[in-house]
């Protein structure tokens, strides 16, 4: 298929293992390497030709129009240039890749290190730049998920309308050497609804963890966009999401994820039934709760009130939260961890700065893009002028300068290509900003878990206190009656029983709260470390690129400056 020395070597091997289905789906990946005819083409040149081909690269993370603008078909520079000396992207790259400069050395941060990627470095590096710097440090454990091959399927049951509901499924392929998984390679078909289920179950099981947020449902967009575009967008988003999940040290080994990735057929995770049915269930329970003594069962305490069916509990906690906010009295247990509160403030600041940095990064990318485009247009204008002068020149003096004009124009076109390539790299590097901004959502959720667990504890404590005082009142009243009061005694026993259950629930709730606190702490540490690594690598990569490309551009123009220096000498 391709030259053996090609950096796509690893990619080839992987290809042999792929199922036939995947072969079809991976067709898009092949193209970037076809154009690289140079056997020892270094990473950069193959990447360069990949990026300058006019294929819509499906793995591009930036869904903004900047990305599509880079790779659009209508780029005038990609159509065969009118001048015979200008070759197509691949072969003309070779003429100025040498001499090896700082640039070439620095360009290899993405290849070699990461053994997780079986695909070519160029493609995988676009996908999760964040994973690179980190996964290479994990001890030879890898997991690689690909989402591909969307297919339309029919809803078989319960279709009122004949021809029924259609939906899309996606092929999810995993390659891994983690022993907890059944095999080293396997695939399964899932629909978006399954992903929502997975996400919900993970949220329940991993309270306090920074769980990457799942892709949005995008109901509006799904109806307004073109089907194909929407499906492609969703496919990309799913892949990104699953990859992020698989990078999380706890979640990658979770049962939920394992089941999701491996079990064929229907996803055997409990689905999140919709709110209506929950409310219905809760409404059914409510009368019984109000009539009798009821309290929340200990086992239910580990989940927040909000998503559950226990309406009474929901009301109680709501009341508690209002008491917390409005009454003057201090709740019985408060968030005392000063360190945590500081951290929370910091996270808030970080989020703001990330947001503004992310915006500026997009502006910068656009400005670089524009620079490249206009430089190219200038070059083209002069190429046309050169052609014109060649054909129609009336005087000898013109013909002499035509060559210089041509060199100038060619240089401008080259410089333009460099700017565009620089930009592609820049986009990849700065994507770390966008990525971490997205993670802030996960942080919010985790902090919310903590808050709701605390609320549960507070509510139970309040409840216990009120039960206690009722019990005391009952005792006092009944002790006045000589011989005992049968009804009162019975009530007292019931109350004591309720108190016991509530006490148990309280203990469970406290344990849960502490557990979540610990999860928060661990995750914050982990996130800080990862962010630190990612940002450092982002900065290095960004700066290295700027240096490398500036050198190349300087070379190109330096030559033209020399060639045209004769004009200036004449003026002396």
């Amino acid at each position, binding site marked *: 298929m391709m030259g053996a020395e090609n950096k796509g070597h690893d990619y080839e091997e992987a290809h042999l293992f792929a199922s036939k289905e995947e072969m079809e789906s991976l067709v898009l990946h092949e193209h970037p390497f076809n154009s690289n005819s140079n056997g020892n083409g270094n990473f950069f040149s193959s990447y360069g030709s990949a990026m300058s081909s006019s294929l819509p690269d499906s793995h591009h993370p930036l869904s903004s129009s900047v990305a599509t603008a880079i790779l659009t078909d209508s780029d005038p520079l990609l159509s065969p240039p009118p001048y015979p000396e200008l070759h197509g992207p691949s072969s003309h790259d070779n003429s100025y890749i040498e001499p090896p400069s700082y640039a070439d050395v620095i360009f290899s941060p993405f290849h070699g290190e990461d053994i997780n990627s079986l695909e070519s470095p160029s493609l995988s590096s676009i996908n999760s730049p964040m994973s690179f710097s980190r996964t290479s440090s994990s001890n030879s454990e890898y997991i690689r998920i690909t989402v591909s091959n969307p297919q339309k399927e029919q809803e078989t049951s319960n279709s009122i309308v004949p021809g029924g509901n259609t939906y899309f499924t996606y092929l999810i392929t995993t390659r891994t050497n983690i022993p907890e998984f059944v095999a080293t390679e396997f695939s399964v078909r899932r629909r978006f609804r399954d992903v929502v289920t997975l996400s919900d179950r993970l949220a329940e099981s991993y309270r306090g963890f920074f769980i990457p947020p799942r892709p949005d449902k995008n109901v509006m967009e799904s109806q307004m966009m073109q089907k194909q575009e929407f499906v492609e967008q969703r496919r990309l988003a799913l892949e990104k999401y699953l990859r992020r999940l698989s990078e999380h040290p706890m979640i990658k080994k979770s049962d939920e994820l394992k089941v999701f990735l491996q079990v064929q057929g229907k996803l055997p995770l409990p689905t999140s039934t919709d709110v209506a049915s929950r409310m219905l269930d809760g409404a059914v329970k409510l009368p019984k709760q109000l009539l009798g003594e009821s309290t929340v069962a200990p086992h239910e305490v580990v989940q927040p009130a909000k998503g559950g069916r226990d309406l009474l509990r929901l009301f109680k906690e709501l009341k508690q939260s209002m008491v917390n906010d409005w009454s003057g009295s201090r709740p019985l247990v408060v968030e005392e961890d000063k360190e945590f509160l500081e951290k929370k403030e910091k996270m808030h600041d970080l989020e703001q700065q990330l947001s503004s940095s992310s915006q500026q*990064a997009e502006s*910068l990318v656009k400005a670089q893009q524009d620079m490249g485009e206009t430089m190219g*247009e200038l070059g083209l204008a002069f190429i046309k002028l050169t052609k014109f002068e060649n054909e129609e020149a009336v005087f000898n003096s013109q013909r002499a300068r035509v060559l210089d004009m041509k060199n*100038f124009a060619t240089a401008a076109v080259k410089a333009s290509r460099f700017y565009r390539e620089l930009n592609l790299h820049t986009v990849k590097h700065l994507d770390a900003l966008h990525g971490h901004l997205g993670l802030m959502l996960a942080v919010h959720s985790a902090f919310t878990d903590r808050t709701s667990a605390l609320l549960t504890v507070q509510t139970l404590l309040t409840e216990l206190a009120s039960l206690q005082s009722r019990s005391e009142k009952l005792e006092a009243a009944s002790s006045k009656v000589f011989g005992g009061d049968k009804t009162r005694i019975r009530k007292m026993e019931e109350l004591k029983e309720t108190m016991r259950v509530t006490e148990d629930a309280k203990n469970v709730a406290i344990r849960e709260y502490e557990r979540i606190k610990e999860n928060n702490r661990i995750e914050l540490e982990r996130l800080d470390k990862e962010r*630190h690594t990612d940002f450092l690598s982002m900065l290095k990569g960004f*700066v290295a690129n700027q240096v490398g490309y500036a050198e190349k551009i*300087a070379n190109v*123009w330096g030559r033209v400056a020399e060639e*045209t220096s004769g004009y200036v000498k004449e003026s002396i």
Partner: protein
Amino acid sequence: MDHQQPPWSVSGSSQSPRSPSSQPYLHVSVIDPVKLGNGVQAYISYRVITKTNLHEYQGPEKIVIRRYSDFVWLHDRLFEKYKGFFIPPLPEKNAVEKFRFTAEFIEMRRLALDIFLNRVASHHELQQSEDLRTFLQVDEAVMERLRAHENGLFKKPAELMQIFKDVQSKVSNVVLGKEKPVEESNAEYEKLKHYIFELENHLAEAQKHSYRLVKRHRELGKSLSDFGKAMKLLGSCEGDSLGKAFSELGAKSEVVSVRLQKEAQQLLMNFEEPLKDYVLAVQSIKATIAERANAFRQHCELAETMKLKEINLDKLTLTRSDKMREAETEYNQLKQANEEAKRRYDDMVRLMNEEIVRFQEQKTLDIGVAFHNFANGQARLANNIADAWRSLLHKLESC
């Protein structure tokens, strides 16, 4: 500011060498732009200094105050009187209102006017023009009267422009064969005309893109600066070494941004302006082409009329009519006029041929220099940028 050529241009072979004091010299310069007047009627006035030892002039040095419309007057007079010559182009009249009084625009215009005047003063024919002497020496009151008189004929400079354009379009109609050909059928001249017209289009496009490129440099500079600031703030959220790294990135971004802004300015002055100058020059050649076509048509019309008169005269001579003498006088007058027209036309043709060679050589050099300056500027910019980032990279590596 005694230079005789625009800063981006080089002396062509036809220029006279530097003149020692005994040699005749004429040095002109346009300096000191000052805003005068209020509101809509505000305008810029310039100081024009002439230093000369030519005896046609009133003295060794003269300073006068002139405004843009005075230069237009001079340009138009030269155009009228020196048919066949390529009159150096003026900077464009129309400027977007809000930019009219920016420092940049004022300086660019001053420079362009200085270049224009110098080109006139160093042109072997034009420098002898009486109108030039008038322009360089009379006081403002007189100048204003002259200008008003001229304007009186044409009502407004805008209308003058319109007439120019009409002539141009009439010429293109004639040249492009839309109107009935009272046309010189000369293959070489046709080729030249076609070349000139096409050239203008290509140059205009190149100039458009180069102006945009200047803007892109500025935009990139600005966004890099904003990005740097955001990075600095982000760094303040992070810990020690990383925070420092962000802060250094921010600082470097600012450095690079400033460098980009500088280069934008250089690009404007050393590349975009020369290109624009070239475009204007080509446009002025087009005007000359129009004039030549006019001269040709005049000559042809006269010749036709003359022929008719000749036939008439012969008829009258044969019939021995009384009207014969009248007719004879008329005929002789016409004959003279025709010979004049022919001579004028022939002069134009000769001149044009000489001028165009000179023009092409000059422009080849000018554009060559422009290319060199562009390439030099870009190379220097890129090297500066590489150096700036490289120093940061070393620091980052140790993080």
